[in-house]
Structures are given as structure tokens and as C-alpha cells.
């Protein structure tokens, strides 16, 4: 069994959620759009899940639009707002997730203008830069709460205040923060919020877009008119129920889980900091700036692909990920680290460890020891002039 430290890619579904989903599937066979009794029962399950998700973000249940994940939610938010307005301008950030960046490129090919703000060396974008980028026809500012590669946290409340002041809708990708950081759509002035279940103990393939009432949005999947015509397609009752269950569980643990993860991550960093020349790409010093579950490091003088393969295939095997598994020479290293000003070589030699509720101190120690050993092995294999960190 590999030591699993890739919870930001997908974290195991919680046993309570699996059980709840099984019960829902066994008991509720109907389509929640149906008028009959089994249909209404299914509808009640969906309503309960909406209440649980909404409670975790300080929202009203009726404003939740269920989707197949954060990717679809982000596509719906950005395309939906721009289609509603018939085009215009969007402000976003260079270090966003591909779901945002690729959707914005698609919109650009259709005449939408996009400003991609840069970030500082820590990966943060400045609220004043957002304010400066807003134009007369800016329809939407789209910013992620927690970066999936580095864990850096954007100051959404400050950016939200700027957007509110300029009357521009703020879309936030909260795929990595739901259940880990406080989220409050009112306090943070959020207008659209994209969520994913499988990053926080719910099932893969379930997500939601929360939409502030009166924000104009054009549907992106057409058909039966489900969800008030905002997203057609038969609702996946068990998926939605699983997401709701995960949110209820997360809410009960919001006081304890972040601190637990933060302590484990701090421990991991201590154990890795002894590696000669290692760089930390996550804001580990300031607990406000970094999400509790992500630690991203670069190991200069070691080839990124070799380090990753060594860890993935060695014994004990680790399950971690790279900002990018591609080589620096091919200029395909992490766009996030490069936006932060890292050199291609440093960006290419990056590793992301991401922790979850089930991560133990033992996992952390084994993973750190294994990483140290692998780095030492690869450095010993390398020609002399590289044996000292670059």
C-alpha cells in the first residue's frame, strides 16, 4: 500500500458518506423531478443535502445548483455570466486552476477580453491590483480561494469588498478550501462559488455552484429544465446526498480538522527542511496565508521527473504529485510556480504533499524519510558538478 499524500487530488470518500449513499440508493429509486410520492421522497433527500452544503458556506439552500464537480461549476459560472451579458471583460489570475484558465481561453476565442493578474513571490494577488484591472464592462472577477498546488490563500474578503464597491460579480473557486477554511458568502462578498465534493470526503463527480440571487446566469447544459432551468439533467440523488453528508461532517469538524492538518504539515516541513537547498513553495510560516493541507517544495539539483518516479515507484511507495511531472526543458513546469517567479528548473523539481483527515504522523515520518533518501540517492547518481544543489 502506498502512503497516500495526494488528498488535494482526491481524498477518500468518508465511510459515513459511503454508507449514506448506499442507503439512499437502496431506498430512493426515483427521479426527484417526478410528482409522485417516491419522487417527492427523493426531492426531500436533495433538499436536505442542499441545506447541509448551504450551511457550510453561509448561504440559502435554494441558491445551490448541483453540478458534476467544480470543473463544471466553474465552466457554468464563467460561461453563464458572460453569455448572460453577451460578452465583456473578465479579471482573473495567472495561477488559477486549469478549469478557470481553459474556460477563459475558450471565452477569449469568442471575443471576451480577459485580464490575468500576476501574483507575488508567495503566490498572492493584491486586492488593489484587482481594483485597478476592473473596466467599465467587467462582468466578473474570478479568483480561487486556495491554490491547489501551493495552498496559498487569497484574501477573498478584501477582493470581495473591491468587487462589491465596483458592482462586479465575484466568482470564487473554493474546490480546495471547502471544509478546510471558513467560507461565508455574505461576509466575503462572494456572488458565485464553485464547490467540489471529492476534495473533502464526498463522492467524485459531485459539485455545486452557489449563485447569489439576481445574478444573471445562462444555463450551459440544456434539457429537461431541472434546477429551475439553470442546469438540466436528472439529479444524481445519491451523489448529492453524499456531498451533503460530507458537508455536515465537515461542519462538525471545522474547529479541529484544520489545526490537526496544520500540525502534521508543519511536522512534514520540519522533516524535509533538512534537505540541502530545499525550497518551500507554500506559505508555511504564516498560518493565515496557507491552507492547512498542502505543502509544496522544490528540490534543486534533482530532476523533477526522476524524483517523482523514484517516490511513486520506490519502496515504500508514496502517492504524491508534482506541480508538473514534465521537464523544465520542455517548459511545461508548473504555471503556478512560474507565476510566482520560480525558475523553470526549480518549478520542475517540485513536489506537492497534500494531507487529509486520515493522514497520520507515521505517514508523515515515513514520507519524509523516503523523500530524504530518494533525494540523496539521485544526488549521488548525478555527475559531480550537480552534486551540490544548484
Amino acid at each position, binding site marked *: 500500500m502506498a502512503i497516500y499524500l495526494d488528498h488535494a487530488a482526491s481524498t477518500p470518500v468518508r465511510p459515513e458518506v459511503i454508507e449514506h449513499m448506499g442507503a439512499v440508493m437502496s431506498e430512493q429509486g426515483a427521479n426527484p423531478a417526478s410528482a409522485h410520492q417516491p419522487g417527492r421522497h427523493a426531492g426531500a433527500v436533495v433538499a436536505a443535502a442542499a441545506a447541509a452544503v448551504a450551511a457550510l458556506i453561509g448561504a440559502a439552500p435554494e441558491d445551490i445548483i448541483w453540478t458534476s464537480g467544480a470543473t463544471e461549476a466553474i465552466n457554468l459560472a464563467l460561461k453563464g455570466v458572460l453569455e448572460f451579458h453577451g460578452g465583456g471583460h473578465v479579471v482573473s489570475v495567472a495561477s488559477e486552476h486549469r478549469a478557470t484558465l481553459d474556460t477563459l481561453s475558450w471565452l477569449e476565442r469568442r471575443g471576451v477580453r480577459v485580464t490575468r493578474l500576476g501574483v507575488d513571490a508567495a503566490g498572492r494577488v493584491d486586492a488593489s491590483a484587482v481594483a485597478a484591472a476592473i473596466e467599465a464592462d467587467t462582468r466578473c472577477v474570478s479568483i480561487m480561494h486556495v491554490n491547489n498546488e501551493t495552498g496559498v490563500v487569497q484574501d477573498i474578503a478584501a477582493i470581495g469588498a473591491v468587487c462589491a464597491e465596483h458592482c462586479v460579480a465575484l466568482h470564487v473557486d473554493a474546490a480546495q478550501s471547502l471544509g478546510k477554511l471558513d467560507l461565508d458568502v455574505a461576509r466575503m462578498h462572494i456572488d458565485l462559488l464553485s464547490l467540489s465534493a471529492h476534495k473533502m470526503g464526498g463522492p467524485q463527480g459531485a459539485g455545486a455552484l452557489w449563485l447569489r440571487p439576481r445574478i444573471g446566469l445562462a444555463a450551459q447544459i440544456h434539457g429537461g429544465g431541472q434546477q429551475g432551468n439553470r442546469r438540466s439533467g436528472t439529479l444524481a440523488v445519491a451523489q448529492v446526498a453524499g456531498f451533503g453528508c460530507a458537508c455536515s461532517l465537515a461542519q462538525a469538524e471545522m474547529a479541529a480538522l484544520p489545526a490537526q492538518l496544520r500540525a502534521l504539515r508543519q511536522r512534514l516541513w520540519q522533516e524535509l527542511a533538512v534537505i540541502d537547498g530545499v525550497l518551500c513553495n507554500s506559505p508555511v510560516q504564516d498560518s493565515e496565508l496557507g491552507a492547512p493541507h498542502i505543502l509544496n517544495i522544490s528540490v534543486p539539483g534533482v530532476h523533477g521527473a*526522476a524524483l517523482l518516479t523514484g517516490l511513486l515507484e520506490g519502496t515504500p511507495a508514496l502517492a504524491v504529485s508534482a506541480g508538473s511531472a514534465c521537464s523544465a526543458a520542455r517548459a511545461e513546469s508548473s504555471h503556478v510556480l512560474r507565476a510566482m517567479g520560480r525558475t523553470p528548473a526549480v518549478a520542475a523539481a517540485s513536489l506537492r504533499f497534500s494531507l487529509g483527515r486520515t493522514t497520520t504522523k507515521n505517514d508523515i515520518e515515513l514520507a519524509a524519510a523516503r523523500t530524504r533518501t530518494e533525494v540523496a540517492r539521485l544526488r549521488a547518481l548525478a*555527475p559531480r558538478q550537480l552534486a551540490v544543489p544548484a
Partner: protein
Amino acid sequence: MAAADERLRRFLQPDHALHARRTWQARGAADTPGADALCEIYLAIADEQIVEAAFAAYGPPIVVACADWLCEQLGGRTIAVMRGLSEADLQAALALAAEERYAGMLVFDALQDALANLET
């Protein structure tokens, strides 16, 4: 599958990494254009025969695997026989994909460099 296993084994546990237990008569080096991979080949030679070959490498796993494979071939051969060894053999043995050919070229370039250094 066999080739995939061999590639992984040679990367994770290469038998021919450079060590300091002997002196080497020749050293050659090569790199890839983008400098994202480097390879050194070391030869220990006695009586026109390669007693042992070893490598140092920096790069993706396939570079290490190729270097290890080459050093294994070299050990025990005469220099003349060794010159007959071709990149095609390596490509076949480790089932290199088109985008991995550079690794085969790299280790053979390092070998050529070592032989050139030997002759001078």
C-alpha cells in the same frame, strides 16, 4: 511489460552507478540541448578490454535506465566489439518511445566522448 519492468528496475536500482572503488581510465560526458539531462560514462580498461563501465546521470528516469543498460553491455567487452554496439539495440531492449530516443542518443554520445578521451 517486460521492458517497462526493466526500465523501472534500472532506474530504481542501477547496478552500474559510479563508485570510487577503482580508478577509471576514461571519462566522457554529454548533455541534451536544453541541459535537462546530463550523462557521464566512466571506463576501466585493461588489455584492450573493458573491465567495468559506470555512469553518473541527471535527468528523467529513462536517462538513468539507458545509462545503466549501456554500462552493463560494455563490461567485459573488447573495445573493438564495443564499437559495434548500436543505439538500435538499446531502443529495442528498453522499448524506447519516439520521445525517449534522446536518452539513448545521450548515453551513446557520452560513450563516444569517453572513447575519444581514451584515444588522446
